[in-house]
């Protein structure tokens, strides 16, 4: 692809807590639809974004069962952007900070996620066309 770009994103927010996660995944999705190569370095609570044990739940307050509630799961978003990028000729290299994973026990992830260190973020940033750090508040 002539206009193929490589973008790196650093994410720091844990899932289910902040709109930054949604915006970050929207940005990654746009890049994936363009077939860009995408690097994601998940730091701190963001290592839970691809956590495999996330489960949908019912909402008794609203009277919804699991299906009706259809609660969104970030691990599915991660899987979706990995697949979308591949479909369009790009790829997502998603690296979870290993120390952050160990601290939180967030070892089990969806496919396409690997373990790394902040050194990987440096390598990603230096080999990318651009980098966006979406820090916690």
């Amino acid at each position, binding site marked *: 692809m002539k*206009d193929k770009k490589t*973008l790196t994103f650093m994410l720091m927010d844990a899932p289910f807590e902040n*709109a*930054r996660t949604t915006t970050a995944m929207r940005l990654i999705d746009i890049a994936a639809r363009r077939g860009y190569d995408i690097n994601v370095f998940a730091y701190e609570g963001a290592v839970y974004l691809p956590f495999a044990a996330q489960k949908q739940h019912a909402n008794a307050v609203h009277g919804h069962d699991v299906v009706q509630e259809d609660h969104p799961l970030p691990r599915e978003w991660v899987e979706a952007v990995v697949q979308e990028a591949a479909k369009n000729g790009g790829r997502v290299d998603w690296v979870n900070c290993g120390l952050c994973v160990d601290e939180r026990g967030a070892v089990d992830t969806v496919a396409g996620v690997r373990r790394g260190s902040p050194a990987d973020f440096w390598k990603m940033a230096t080999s990318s066309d*651009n*980098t*966006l*750090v979406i820090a916690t508040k």
Partner: protein
Amino acid sequence: MTDYLMIESRDPFDSGDVANFLVLAEGLSKAGNRVTLFLVQNGVLPARHGVRSAQLAALAGNGVEVLADSFSLQERGISANRLLPGVKAAPLETVVDRLAGGCKALWH
């Protein structure tokens, strides 16, 4: 001249840092750089007329391109015709465009 993309995600009522971020945008622009301020999430709230809109309106009138994420506006029920003069609705694709183009990007 350097191209800057400054992304503001915070509401000035929620974070006093927003004013400092806008001062930074103003300073970069006055130094001869091309600056785009992209408002997203609750960062779009001062794009309407309001008590915390003056600083944003001044930026938009002084050479800073001020864009507001159309999805964030829609989520908050803010129609494009309620935006301050000089503030334009734009899709989030704009951010990816600018990143791909090599803008120096800063998220707040």
